[in-house]
């Protein structure tokens, strides 16, 4: 629905890190409307940190993150809140509020940001839960759900306000292959049928090939992007052998810093 190739997020000259330590520098990329965009890289290279900067949790050292005409880095007050409501986030652990039922978790953004009547909010929350096949767990507490169910419920909460853009941090981590494949199907369906734009951080190769329209590959040593494109393109034709080995799941890739 309404999928065009315009960029919805533009990251310009983003340099980020903790304290004095620079993790990534001068990142430039864009996410297009309706695509499933995957940020990948080896463990500990800073993928999740990039995502946390993109959703405004951490301020970058330098750089800009544009959502349409607005720069998240400089947005303040109401402008910033309006910007934050344009996307939903699913955290690695699901981050459901443990003192509320699943339905209450999904209803929370509706309670806070809309004037809808209670019945409408209940219906919206249940519809979102149905979309992720979690409607039967609506009245359970998060602690009673498995890891995969918690992640699906977290997606339902993230889409409660129909945000258009969804950030997912390691959606497949810790899930069995069947649950993981189910989640991939859900992501694809939400993207293809409802036009959601996804930004996903993962290093699960199967998931990447199942869902990704485009990927960028980050490298901790060179502190930058070492590959951009479709996953099959990168696997077969990347000029960087380290990228090809990553996609082909070969052991002991050579040091990417040494590759020219």
């Amino acid at each position: 629905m309404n999928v065009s190739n315009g960029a919805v997020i533009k990251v310009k000259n983003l340099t980020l890190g903790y304290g004095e330590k620079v993790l990534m520098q001068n990142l430039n990329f864009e996410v297009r409307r309706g695509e499933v965009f995957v940020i990948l890289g080896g463990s500990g290279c800073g993928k999740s940190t990039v995502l946390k900067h993109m959703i405004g949790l951490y301020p970058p050292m330098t750089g800009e993150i544009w959502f349409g005409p607005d720069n998240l880095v400089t947005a303040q007050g109401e402008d910033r809140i309006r910007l934050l409501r344009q996307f939903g986030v699913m955290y690695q652990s699901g981050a459901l509020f443990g003192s509320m039922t699943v339905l209450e978790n999904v209803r929370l953004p509706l309670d806070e940001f809309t004037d809808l009547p209670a019945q409408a909010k209940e219906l919206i929350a249940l519809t979102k839960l149905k979309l992720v096949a979690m409607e039967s767990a609506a009245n359970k507490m998060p602690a009673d759900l498995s890891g995969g169910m918690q992640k699906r419920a977290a997606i339902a909460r993230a889409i409660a306000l129909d945000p258009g853009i969804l950030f997912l941090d390691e959606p497949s981590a810790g899930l069995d292959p069947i649950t993981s494949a189910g989640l991939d199907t859900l992501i694809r369906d939400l993207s293809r049928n409802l036009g959601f734009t996804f930004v996903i951080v993962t290093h699960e190769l199967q998931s990447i090939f199942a869902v990704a329209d485009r990927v960028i590959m980050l490298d901790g040593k060179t502190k930058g992007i070492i590959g951009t494109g479709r996953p099959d393109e990168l696997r077969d034709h990347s000029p960087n052998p380290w990228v090809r080995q990553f996609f082909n799941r070969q052991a002991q890739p050579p040091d990417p810093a040494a590759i020219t």
Partner: protein
Amino acid sequence: MPATLDGSSASFELNAGQAGNGTLILTGRLDARSIAGMWKELEARFRQTPMSTLEVNAAGVGYCDGAGLALLHALSFGGLAGPEVRVTVQGLRPELLKLFETFAAEDYRENRPQPPEHSSVTEEVGRVALDAVSGLKEELSFIGEVTTGLAANMRRAKALRWGEIWRVFEVAGVNALPIISLISLLVGLIIAFEAAGPFEMFGAQIYIANMLGIIMARELAGLMAAIILAGRSGSAFAAELGTMKVNEELNALETMGLSPVRFLVVQRILAGILLTPLLTIYAIFVSIAGGVVVMMFMGFSLVTIYNQMAQSLHLTDILIGVVKGVIFGALIAGIGCLRGLQTKKGPSAVGESTTSSVVTAILMIIVADAVVAVLLYLLHL
């Protein structure tokens, strides 16, 4: 279904036809902003115009998000017009129709939150009694485990993890000295100060020294130290063990063949047993010092106060304080650890264990103090 944050507008036209066959024409953008007002208006209109069938025409709907779908679902499930009205929705664009049809009336009815079941007083009483019995069983088995753990560790003193005991000693004991000093000093000062008036009426101010020595050594110093420890350290034990339980660290210990009680609890209880009497002795002296300061301001010399106190305060009194310290220490550490091990699931579980550890420990300290007081009376001590 991308969101828009700009202004949105939608309108409806409700016609009550003949023989109760109504039509509702929806047009515009159905989103959270536009339907909030429309919903209430529709409810009011349906109340005014009862009908038996309703045909919803959504051909004029240009945009429809989750909120818009909720309106269509509420209409079709009878949530707005009434359950007795037969509703048909027509004219939805194919992609919206697909979304609309993914959620059925059964999904709503079966999964909407049900009101909580009310149980009878008898059931409640029964449940509380059963909980009390199972709690007592747990406590007894905990005491048994701790006793066997202590005995086992005593036989193999090297395996006792003395490092952990010293760490607890430092965190729960040394770090508590400033607060214990302050509170003891102030309580000593206050009691001497408050007693000065009544004692003066009988010309018996010098006996403040007797009272201060006995009340602090036998009762108050131990109670103060114990209550501070329960709040500072008993709660910390509960939170520490509770977090370990939530993080499955206790399961990890068990699967390694290590008993959490022997590995974690015994050390804390030993530290508590050794620590509390020491803090009690410290609190006795600091609080007496506080009272002495007041008496010196009243004009008594240090030697006079000492001689007066030496006549009435015996080693037995201080030993009673020490024995109480041992009992209180075991109670505080034991209850803190027990509540930590009993931590349930969920984000509030650790908080509940911590609160419960402090409340139970303070209650048990007072009960134990009363029991010891009766025993001392019977033993003529």
